[in-house]
């Protein structure tokens, strides 16, 4: 699975919506949490 860290905030936000993961804005202090949740949802 392509590493999420290379994706833009917008792409991360779209992926979170695709996986139905509730979220707020993707900012520096929240990005790591959302990437982790996406990784969990993708595996």
């Amino acid at each position, binding site marked *: 699975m392509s590493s999420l860290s290379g994706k833009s*905030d*917008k792409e991360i*936000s779209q992926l979170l919506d695709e996986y139905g993961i509730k*979220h*707020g*804005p*993707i*900012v*520096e*202090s929240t990005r790591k949490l959302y990437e982790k949740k996406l990784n969990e949802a993708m595996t």
Partner: protein
Amino acid sequence: TSQKHKDFVAEPMGEKSVMALAGIGEVLGRRLEEKGFERAYVVLGQFLVLRKDEELFREWLKDTCGANIKQQGD
């Protein structure tokens, strides 16, 4: 400060829209909404996370919604 800002601080921000913030009109408001900052309190959160550093916050606003100097100041 503008009347808009006076109105804003006159009561708890609660669930107010991001467009209730002084300096944030229709255009900037839409851009902020698209990035997940629909509510004024979320923008406040970002300001606090940036340790209330005005410089950083202005830069963030400019990067996030293209706010110009005046709008950032408001």
